[in-house]
């Protein structure tokens, strides 16, 4: 027996501690690489109302293209804003 071991609980505590050390290593390994929009301060969550059928179509299209609905909607809104700006310039 190890000289340092002085009580009958030493081996038990060592065994339990080694288990805890093993647990601690794991979370550092699988930290998420990309931040999700829900935790990214550059994004804001909002609610919009869509006709049920349109929402279904959007969802189906997003899945088939493997894109997020958020990204598609953001892209469309950007286009719409740019188009609005251009038509305004034409009138001026």
């Amino acid at each position, binding site marked *: 027996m190890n000289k340092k071991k002085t*009580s009958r609980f*030493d*081996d*038990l*505590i060592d*065994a*339990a*501690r080694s*288990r*805890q050390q093993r647990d601690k290593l794991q979370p550092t390994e699988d930290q998420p690489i990309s931040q999700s929009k829900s935790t990214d301060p550059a994004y804001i969550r909002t609610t919009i109302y869509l006709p049920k059928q349109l929402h279904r179509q959007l969802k189906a299209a997003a899945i088939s293209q493997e894109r997020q609905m958020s990204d598609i909607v953001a892209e469309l809104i950007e286009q719409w804003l740019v188009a609005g700006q251009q038509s305004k310039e034409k009138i001026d």
Partner: protein
Amino acid sequence: MIITVAAFKGGVGKSTTALHLATYLQNKADTLLIDGDLNRSALDWSNRGCLPFKVADEKDGVSLATLYEHIVIDTPARPDTNELKTIAKGCDLLVIPTTPDAIALAATLQMVNLLKQFKTNYRILLTLIPPNPNKAGEEARTSLEQAGIPIFKSGIRRLAVFQRAALEGVPVNVVKDSYAKIAWRCYAEAGKEILR
């Protein structure tokens, strides 16, 4: 998490506390109860009936410890200084049950003084609190709080249903008794405080 239950005085509900905290923790993750008490009260308890978690002595515990998420260690009454040192340094939380009477409180304060040199995370749990109108529980709590000693918000009431549980070899929450729920809630609240 490694939780140790220790007290300098016997008969303060040490094994009962270890057993019921293990019962609570088992609901969250696999829990191992180490019966380090040479009376082997917890092993007796589990041999008499059935307990919802694994019980082992400190020797068998060595190989088992790596398999369990939570480990609750029941210690002998009046652990020697080396044992106390190992346990105090090695565990995440040391639970010190004490009854609200002068003799037990004196023993508890003695233990607290000894623990100061080990930088232990410890908390006092008041046990066997007599029912109203007896104020012993409240008085003990007030004096411990005034002394700046960490103490569980939850206290364990003195209820006969704990004796029945021991006799049947089960945790108090499976005893068929109108007080079983009340008794169990005492420990469930303490368990919640541990995991918070």
